[in-house]
């Protein structure tokens, strides 16, 4: 559970509010999708939860304990159960270590098992993520992008985590490989009852994997609902625009040619005007939107939205 999390970066004497008062919870075995465009703060949020970036304020409560109150060894022990898979697998693996060593590394760090036992665990993990054992001694640069990401996933699984932050884990992969990795994450979720925070700009991928979905815009969550509600009856104008802008497979046989486009671009998060953050791009904008920041309210059971007009 995350409560009122904030992360501000200093920017030329002003504040860039990358994560501005964000709260949500993720149940055991649940996947929360986090969607947003670049600059929305979604990666900063993911990292702040693990304290890879130190948040400025708020609470991150994992199994009853506020991670922000822990230090040193205590934090390390607790964080064993929280792992992250990054976007660029090559950059996130140690290039001087083989695939096997990369997967084994967390076990060594946490002093788990003997050498032989660890080797056995690595083999099992490689089976789980669908890596052939022949690549155990290959270096990351010798592997394909899909294999590299599987190594990244195996490494994240090594300590039997309960919660994984997956930060755009497939966006740098080719279409056919993307589908393989998504299928893998989907299987793992069911097999190990993992909780995921799945961060992506791709609404289709998020929908595929998530139980609930949060939409982020300029540092705050503007809408949060079950997957069904969010995709079938989105309430926030930004969510609606996002959904409308994606090319769909033309099942009825007719190409679309034109796509529904939102005007403008995501504004600079430094020095935001008062009122609603989405006002500059919103077609429903009225006076109140310029004056008052909309509250994040529950409009129907489990469906939250921050919009004066929703």
């Amino acid at each position: 559970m995350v409560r009122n999390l904030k992360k501000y970066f200093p920017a030329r004497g002003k504040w860039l509010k990358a994560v501005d008062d964000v709260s949500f919870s993720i149940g055991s075995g649940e996947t929360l999708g986090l969607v947003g465009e670049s600059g929305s703060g979604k990666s900063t949020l993911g990292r702040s939860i693990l304290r890879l970036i130190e948040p400025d304020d708020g609470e991150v409560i994992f199994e009853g304990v506020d991670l922000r109150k822990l230090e040193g060894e205590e934090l390390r022990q607790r964080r064993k159960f929280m792992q992250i898979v990054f976007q660029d697998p090559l950059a996130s693996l140690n290039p001087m270590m083989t695939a096997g060593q990369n997967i084994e590394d967390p076990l060594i760090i946490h002093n788990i098992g003997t050498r032989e036992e660890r080797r056995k665990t690595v083999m099992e993990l490689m089976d789980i993520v669908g890596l052939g054992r022949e690549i155990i001694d290959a270096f990351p640069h010798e592997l394909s992008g899909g294999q590299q990401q599987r190594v990244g996933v195996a490494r994240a699984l090594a300590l039997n985590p309960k919660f994984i932050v997956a930060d755009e884990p497939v966006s740098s992969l080719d279409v056919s490989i993307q589908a393989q990795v998504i299928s893998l994450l989907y299987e793992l979720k069911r097999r190990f009852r993992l909780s995921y925070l799945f961060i992506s700009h791709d609404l289709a991928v998020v929908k595929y994997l998530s139980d609930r979905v949060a939409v982020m815009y300029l540092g705050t969550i503007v809408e949060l609902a079950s997957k069904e509600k969010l995709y079938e009856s989105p309430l926030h104008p930004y969510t609606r625009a996002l959904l409308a802008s994606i090319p769909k497979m033309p099942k009825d046989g007719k190409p679309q040619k034109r796509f529904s486009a939102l005007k403008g671009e995501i504004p600079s998060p430094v020095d935001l005007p008062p009122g609603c953050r989405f006002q500059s791009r919103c077609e429903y904008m009225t006076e109140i939107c310029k004056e008052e920041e909309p509250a994040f309210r529950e409009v129907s059971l489990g469906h939250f939205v921050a919009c004066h007009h929703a």
Partner: protein
Amino acid sequence: MEELLVVNNLKTHFHRYEGVVKAVDGISYQLHYGETLTIVGESGSGKTVSALSLLGLIRKNGRVVDGEAIFEGRDLLKLNREELRQIRGKDISMVFQDPMTSLNPIMKVGIQIMEPLVWHKLMQGKEARERAIELLRVVGIPDYQVRVWDYPFEFSGGMRQRVMIAMALACNPKLIIADEPTTALDVTVRAQILNLMQDMKEEFGLSIILITHDVALAMNFSDSIMVMYAGKVAEYAPITEFIKNPLHPYSQGLIDSTIDIEAEEGSIKPIPGAPPNPLDLPSGCKFHPRCGYAQDICREVEPESREVGDNHRVACHLAERGET
């Protein structure tokens, strides 16, 4: 419709220390006036090289070894450097994936848009300046009269891509080759740029070759589609035909791998394996190790591209209309 460009048996090979990479190995297609052809494929399939080959933009260790590319009656592959320069940026222009690296960072965008006009001796001075401002208006840059004297870093990603398109349009080209023009952009901005390209196409009667890895985009944006795999054309078809009847197992695999917003949970079917190593291609059909239908003939004999319907070609031994 008349043909603007006819490519026959184009082959571009790269010489590397480890051997010869046949990046493009015998591709053929036609492009009509006002048509959008999308080349779809994964990284390394040869889609970008096939386009760069037309403009003589292949790096030194690579060479066009065979084929012809007839553009309005002239074979682009036989032109010398000077003749190609007369066509590049004038009759054929390009839009690249990353506008930040393809614009000159220390030149005001207005000057960059004027450059092809002046270079091709179409306009000069005040006239060229006015044209640059007009082009920025056409591509939808707010405050274009002021922004024309800004540098690329002062623009956002989407705005930079609009500048690239303005530059590509400057000399009234007949053909724009757009290589992953929206891949680096956010979804809402992507839709804006695609709409802009569609508007420009209709307004100026342009032909477009769009290169992308995004199958859903290709199926919506094109008039025709060409699916490439390992340097070859796996399938080529008019888009409505392709939507109804994709025949090559690789095309079907790409479609089934695509996670659509309407996809049901558990419904994607990934293609197993990875694209082949270009230095060590499989025998027979290059796709056979990943193909669920592969038989002995696929391992031994490389399939020829066959016409299976009206302008619908597929390179697969087994594909028949309505059977696979």
